[in-house]
């Protein structure tokens, strides 16, 4: 039962951030294509945004790890 909880926690927790990061990078690359000169700024903000959305997946991972190891 616990193993099931661990698997579900991580699996379901990765859906949202996965979609979010894909959306974010898609929009960032589109913006870079429309305005190649602003690439540097766009890239910085893109990495920052990716770290935020990835953090949500990491919260799910932390819960899964806590469940698995205690």
């Amino acid at each position, binding site marked *: 039962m616990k193993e099931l909880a661990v698997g579900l926690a991580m699996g379901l927790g990765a859906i949202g951030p996965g979609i979010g990061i894909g959306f974010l990078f898609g929009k960032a690359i589109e913006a870079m294509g429309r305005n190649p000169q602003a690439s540097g700024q766009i890239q910085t903000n893109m990495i920052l945004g990716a770290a935020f959305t990835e953090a949500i997946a*990491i919260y799910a991972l932390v819960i899964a790890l806590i469940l698995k190891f205690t």
Partner: protein
Amino acid sequence: MAAPLHISISAEPVLSFAGFPITNSMLTSLIVSGLLIVFALWVRVTLKKTDRPTGVQNVAEMIIEALYNLVQSVTNNIEKTNLFFPFIATFFLFILVNNWVGLIPGVGTIGHYDAAGVFIPLLRAGTADINMTLALALISVTFIQIFGVKYLSIGYFSKFINFSNPLNFVVGILEIVSELSRIISFAFRLFGNIFAGEVLLAVMMYLTKIVGPMPFYGMEIFVGFIQALVFAMLSVVLFNIATIGHGAEHDAHH
């Protein structure tokens, strides 16, 4: 086969200093602090005033200049940059070196077996301990409040407690919750990334001996750098927002 897989979410004490237990990640972060201090002293002692720096001075100037420009690009205000820069640079360098030291071969694998047969490594990545990342998060959020009060004096707290308007009162409560959740998010983002990286490398090394972990090592180096950068950049953006004040904050974003 070889030794069984051992992963523990909390750091284990390996030393005791005057009755105070020192865990393996605490020991690693003390060593990292020592390294950073030695580097800083070395640069200071061999500092030469020249237009063409060489050697250690060149490396140090590259790092300092990059971080200074990063802070300046967010605040656009020399006085604020000079105030924020030491904190941001310390956060960045401390977290970065702590993350990368966790990847050195030997950290996490050299240790001893205790009485119950459980393996205890002597050294372990400093930021893979929730206590360390929680401490860093608390320091960052405390300094946000300190800088807010320094720039806006006691009126800074009208962001949180505001009786002028029922709507503003509710927004104030939301701001308090948001500030507390920042502590959690700072702590867990850094801890989750680095600890998950440790677990990933341990599992990969257990399953596929030498070849498997190689691409994951590259990813861990990248992730360590990005997490340090995100912590520092998020801190400087929040410092800046706190000092600008509630009304003008919509023009502050670059």
